[in-house]
């Protein structure tokens, strides 16, 4: 008869193995590209939210600092990030943000950058930290604290305008959230190589994203529906 086992198997990670470094070249590139996208996106948002220009520029600067930190993590492990892979990885989300910006659709842009990308980053960094090499661990711990502030910026703006942005958020969620599940599936094996389980990433993302939607003003039931959008098919 199966009894409860009192141990959780912990595999030790060889940060210098070729398989680890190969996976790291893609994950590290995604993180660097993600921070670059975030930098660009916050600067682009200044056109749509001129009153928040100073705050957005501060957030953008933080993202650039994060990018440099993660570049240092790659160098520390002597890994060359696969930037071509990362650009392609973000292309659909990037395209949707650009289209939103051209149309002056601040709701879509904030949902993509401030909610989806930030929640994704927070989830991934939190899951990564216990598995990271000591150098990357320190850098990532610093970054994750900042990311909560970024998430907060989008939440606050969308909350203040909830009645007028609710429908837009639902539409943007429908169009963009399924991309997140697709992106997660795409790096499932590489993330596992780094000690990050897909289920843990999904769960943490849903918690973070769900909390943000709840803070903005969606009801608990709406949050459950919105945050699971497209997950089953993902």
């Amino acid at each position, binding site marked *: *008869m*199966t*009894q*409860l*086992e*009192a*141990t*959780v*198997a912990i595999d030790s990670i060889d940060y210098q193995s070729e398989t680890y470094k190969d996976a790291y070249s893609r994950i590290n590139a995604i993180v660097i590209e993600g921070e670059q996208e975030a930098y660009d996106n916050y600067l682009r948002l200044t056109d749509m939210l001129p009153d928040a220009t100073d705050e957005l520029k501060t957030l953008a600067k933080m993202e650039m600092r994060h990018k440099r930190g993660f570049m240092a993590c790659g160098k520390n492990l002597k890994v060359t990030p696969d930037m071509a892979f990362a650009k392609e990885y973000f292309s659909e989300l990037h395209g949707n943000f650009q289209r939103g910006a051209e149309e002056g659709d601040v709701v879509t842009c904030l949902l993509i950058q401030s909610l989806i990308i930030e929640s994704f980053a*927070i989830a991934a960094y*939190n899951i990564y930290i216990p598995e990271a090499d000591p150098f990357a661990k320190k850098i990532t711990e610093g970054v994750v604290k900042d990311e*909560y502030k970024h998430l907060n910026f989008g939440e606050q703006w969308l909350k203040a305008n909830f009645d007028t942005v609710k429908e837009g958020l639902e539409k943007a969620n429908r169009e963009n959230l399924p991309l997140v599940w697709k992106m997660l599936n795409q790096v499932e094996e590489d993330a596992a190589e780094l000690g990050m*389980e*897909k*289920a*843990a*990433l*999904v*769960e*943490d993302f*849903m*918690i973070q994203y*769900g*909390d943000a939607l709840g803070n903005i003003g969606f009801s*608990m*039931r709406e949050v*459950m*529906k919105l*945050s*699971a959008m497209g*997950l*089953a098919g993902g």
Partner: protein
Amino acid sequence: MFGLIGHSTSLAEADVATVRLGFPEYSGHGLDFWCGAPPLLADKVRVTSPTGNVIEGQYIDSCFLPEMLTNNRGKTAVRKVLNAMAQAQKCGLSITALGGFSSIVFENFNLSRMRQVRNVSLEFEKFTTGNTHTAYIICRQVEEMAERLNIELSKATVAVCGATGDIGSAVCRWMTSHADVEDLLLIARQRDRLETLQGELGRGKVVDLEEALPQADFIVWVASMPQGVQIDPKVLKKPCVIVDGGYPKNMSTQINHPDIYVLNGGIVEHTIGIESQIMQIIGMAEPARQIFACFAESMLLEFEKWHTNFSWNRNEITVEKMEKIGAASIKHGFLPLLPHTAA
């Protein structure tokens, strides 16, 4: 506001429960889906005490499933419990009970080492395993059945299976100092722990399950196993009372004999009623009234404003604490589940 952290007893039940609760998009997926699902604020709970006090609570489904333990997903089980606890804390709940496997996972995986869950630092004083009330209720079920069947406990043999666990050891303490049973049979996997318990109690016989079953007038089953257990009724004494305090409970459906009484152990009925859909979802026979005693403990702590981890750590449940929670249990209208009240 109090909290209850619970979960479905199987993947199949989880599918049914989510539809009933109005979340069809969470239904019909495999175990992998549940491994990635966040804790759900599933329903509100409202309880009225005979004193007139009314309290409200929040039921959180951790999305843990017992299949996670049988499929070697211990790490996932740990995450489910910690995330549900963080969720309870974010909701500002004063006291939250860890129901079902939650407290077992917490204890067996030693989660007290893992206080930090992302940006939430868990305050363990806001959580209770509910084991003191569960142990008290199981003991009261034994005592009331003894009275009903005219069995003098001082002449009876009580076998406790899972004796070294938190609930099992508390039951043993009560049976020793409160009920003064004639013979106490101690059954568990680990012999050294059994001997330590025997030393603490100053009595009791360490025996194997096979040896204990034919001797016992009362069998208290408090071992928790993801796949349940099977007992052959032929080997049991007649009459015999089995208090199935394990989780999940499956003995009442297995054993069908007029002289063998199987009680769902550690379950209480409320004299006024509990307003929530949840009791139906978690498989209570009379969902408007019945509830796990561990959940009821958080209600009692809320009623009494004892916002503290009343039941915490392993093997620290004293008879005095059982008496204290027992008095609160009676005051606020909870009764041990007995056969005449069972559906």
